[in-house]
């Protein structure tokens, strides 16, 4: 027995010795980077909050010269919510916006509901094709009452991206914003997210809003009226996760003018540029990420000055997966999308021609987003093995784990701190204790599970499997129980 274990022990020891310093270096770099992002994010927030008193939303809301916005809403079997979603978008506070619903071959009553509720009639006028579309269009509808700015495209099922491309062809306003039918928008959301376009019309090409967790919140007629912590374990953890990635991550990147990931749930773009770039790539899983990368490449190559801006103010709420199965599917999908986009734009990585996007943002996503779960799993296997075989002693292993997890907790606390100092939507003391509990809790189980799921997604991408998880026409929230 002993002589069988001895070579293994030697191998593990060697592995420990070889990897100890690289892992430590990785750890130091990723954490320092996060700290830097936190600092940049704080600068971003301070600037935003100090300007609140003269944001001018009231004037913009009443101006006939504010840029028009087309709200693109793909819908696949949304019969239960579609009428409310459309109504809530029509009621948003903005002087000039239209709703473009693209019914992606729903098999339920989505289309009929819209026809009945909004008194739609068929619109036989032709549509010029600016972005190629795969799904065949069956009919286009608009309201009999021409004052009601709604267009509904009925087409055969061809996926979310293709539906959005169809929406781009029908859209008539200068700005487009992509929303999901189950997203809940605040009444001022269009004003807030379009503000950078009004303030700097020459350079701003895209803005991305924050997405917040709607689970547990009180919702009336498509609006969040009261923010609560959800009871569900997975949803709670995702609240802290979303605060971290949005409040600290994206605000920091935006400050560096290298925001490369805009959430598909609430991203606003200049229509002419998205059309020029060719719309969304229907073959790409991370289609939102891919589009933003394509815009970055287009603008950098043509040497035009441009900005992609993150909007920190919470205006969009979405239901997040509340079961392990749905969450697993979402995370596999996200990681697969990440890999596909990084591979597709590998030529931009470490390419000084693409400025901070190529030199900082892309390398960061490669090293710290893509590879992170592999390192996590490596630690998860090697530390217990080392313990078992007596290569390392118990206190040492515990200290090692404590460093990793304490740092994670510290970053979560920083996110809570920023939220508390800025938007403080979770107002009660109870909310804070729950958030604290969750920051500790997520390190035991959740963190490891997501690492596994992400590796699975990556693995699936490497093997080039198509459609492994069924027809994923929507963002992956479709089975989330309310």
């Amino acid at each position, binding site marked *: 027995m002993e002589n069988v274990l001895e070579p293994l022990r030697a191998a593990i020891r060697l592995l420990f010795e070889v990897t100890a310093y690289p892992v430590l270096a990785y750890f130091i770099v990723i954490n320092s980077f996060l700290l830097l992002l936190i600092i940049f994010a704080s600068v971003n927030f301070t600037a935003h909050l100090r300007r609140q008193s003269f944001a001018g939303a009231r004037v913009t809301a*009443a101006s006939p010269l504010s840029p028009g916005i087309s709200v693109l809403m793909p819908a696949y079997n949304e019969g239960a919510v579609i009428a409310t979603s459309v*109504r809530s978008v029509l009621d948003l*506070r903005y002087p000039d916006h239209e709703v473009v619903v693209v019914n992606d071959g729903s098999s339920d009553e989505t289309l009929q509901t819209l026809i009945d509720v909004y008194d739609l009639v068929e619109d036989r006028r032709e549509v010029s094709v600016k972005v190629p579309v795969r799904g065949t269009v069956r009919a286009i509808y608009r309201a009999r009452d021409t004052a009601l700015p709604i267009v509904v495209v009925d087409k055969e099922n061809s996926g979310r991206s293709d539906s959005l491309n169809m929406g781009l062809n029908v859209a008539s306003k200068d700005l487009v914003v992509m929303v999901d039918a189950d997203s809940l928008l*605040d009444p001022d959301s269009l004003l807030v997210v379009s503000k950078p376009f009004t303030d700097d019309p020459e350079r701003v090409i895209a803005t991305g809003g924050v997405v917040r967790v709607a689970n547990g919140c009180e919702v*009336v*007629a498509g*609006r969040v*009226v009261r923010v609560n912590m959800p009871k569900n374990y997975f949803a709670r953890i995702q609240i802290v996760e979303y605060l971290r990635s949005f409040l600290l991550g994206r605000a920091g990147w935006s400050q560096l003018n290298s925001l490369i990931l805009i959430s598909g749930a609430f991203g606003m773009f200049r229509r002419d540029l998205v059309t020029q770039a060719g719309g969304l790539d229907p073959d790409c899983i991370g289609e939102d990420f891919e589009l933003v990368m394509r815009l970055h490449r287009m603008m950098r190559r043509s040497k035009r000055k441009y900005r992609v801006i993150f909007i920190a103010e919470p205006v969009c709420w979405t239901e997040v997966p509340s079961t392990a199965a749905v969450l697993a599917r979402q995370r596999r999908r996200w990681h697969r999308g990440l890999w596909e986009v990084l591979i597709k734009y590998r030529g931009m990585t470490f390419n000084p021609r693409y400025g901070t996007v190529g030199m900082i943002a892309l390398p960061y996503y490669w090293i710290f987003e893509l590879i992170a779960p592999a390192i996590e799993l490596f630690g998860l296997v090697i530390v217990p093995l080392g313990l078992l075989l007596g290569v390392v002693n118990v206190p040492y292993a515990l200290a090692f784990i404590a460093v990793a997890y304490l740092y994670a907790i510290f970053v979560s606390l920083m996110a809570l701190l920023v939220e508390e100092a800025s938007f403080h939507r979770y107002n009660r003391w109870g909310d804070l204790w729950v958030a604290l509990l969750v920051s500790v809790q997520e390190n035991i189980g959740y963190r490891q599970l997501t690492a596994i799921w992400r590796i699975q997604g990556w693995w699936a991408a490497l093997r080039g499997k198509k459609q492994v998880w069924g027809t994923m026409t929507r963002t992956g929230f479709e089975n989330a129980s309310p």
Partner: protein
Amino acid sequence: MPHRILVVDDDADIRDLVSTKLESSGYEVETAGDGVAGLELAINNEYSLVISDVMMPGMSGVDMVRMMRSAEPPISVPVILLTAKNQERDIESGFAAGVTDYVVKPFSPRELAARVAGILAR
């Protein structure tokens, strides 16, 4: 017996300003902070008039009127909507929903009180 008026607005400042003005004109005023609460009060009480904001979290003023008119039995109380400048669409959909009159923000409390008196005199 004084007229009872329901004021629905999510902005407490406006709610208080309007009710102070109307109370000084001798009306009895009740208030609600959103469309849902307003609808509930309108269903369970008898009012001579409702004054409501359009943009409110949850149910909008126009939606509230729509639901009042389609309730069983329908609530046919006159409604004045407070709407923001340049929101003609609200005015159109409001009239379609059965709104009686409009006052555009920024509004003059004195003028609002005069409109109220005019409608109640009909």
